[in-house]
């Protein structure tokens, strides 16, 4: 049987060895630069406080990532509990006789010029970015993880501590909202 390697923590080297990795991991999920930086810094602080619990079984980086993941869930819970404010606009009648039908003003209009649009240009990216940023944060995070980072559904559910039906409702709301935004800002004649 292979002998287990014992790992050690060396906070003096944390920034040098792990800060880019942790930062890129965070920003690919949270997208906001300053916020990502804060979460990484918080992770280092939490790591310092929890050094006594480190058993040396996992590598230093794995251990720090575990703490960071916890921070991301906490952040997600926090914004998830903030009701109202930038709530997604409704696309379908929520109840009544026409429940589930398109609300007139939100019905997709004809993009008859979309063929002429070059979809690889920079301006398009800027338009997409603007539309994603208009989403409530909790939707933008899930949408980015699933669509931009292309993470597995299961992984996202685990990282944010949500159910898969939860995830698909969010994706649906995000995409219908984005469609309208892109229509108004890009595809409209």
């Amino acid at each position, binding site marked *: 049987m292979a002998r287990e390697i014992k790992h050690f923590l060396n*906070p*003096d080297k*944390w*920034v*040098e060895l792990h*800060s*880019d990795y942790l*930062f*890129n991991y965070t*920003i*690919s999920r949270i*997208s906001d*630069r300053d916020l990502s*930086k804060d979460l*990484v*810094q918080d992770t*280092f*602080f939490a790591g*310092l406080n929890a050094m006594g619990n480190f058993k040396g079984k996992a590598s230093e980086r794995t251990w720090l990532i575990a703490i960071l993941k916890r921070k991301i869930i906490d952040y997600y819970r926090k914004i998830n509990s903030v009701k109202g404010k930038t709530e997604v606009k409704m*696309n*379908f009648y929520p109840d009544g006789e026409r*429940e*589930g*039908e*398109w609300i007139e003003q939100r*019905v*997709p209009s*004809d*993009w008859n010029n*979309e063929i002429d649009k070059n*979809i*690889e240009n*920079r301006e*398009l*990216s800027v338009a*997409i*970015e603007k539309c994603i940023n208009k989403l409530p944060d909790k939707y933008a995070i899930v949408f*980015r993880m*699933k*669509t*931009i980072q*292309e993470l597995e*559904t299961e992984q996202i559910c685990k990282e944010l501590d949500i159910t898969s039906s939860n995830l*698909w*409702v969010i*994706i*649906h709301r995000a*995409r*219908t909202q*984005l*469609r309208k935004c*892109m*229509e108004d800002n890009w*595809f409209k004649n």
Partner: protein
Amino acid sequence: MKLCCDNATAICDKGQYGEIKIWEKIKLGLHFLWCKKCRRYSKQNSILSKCYRNHQEFEKKKQCCLTDLEKECMDERIKENTIF
């Protein structure tokens, strides 16, 4: 059995990630038979998915890396906290 537009487009969105079941596909197909609005939604959805895929590179470039100064600040703050 009959789908409303809200549910149909929800399936359609899920379909953009290749994660719908065969019976959902059938239900969606039936809905498309009579609903022009959702057919249009579906067509636009594919175009948007292509746009979002192209957007990936742009996002990734934007994201990368802390500056040296940011790292220095971080390091200092860690050291402040380890003194005690």
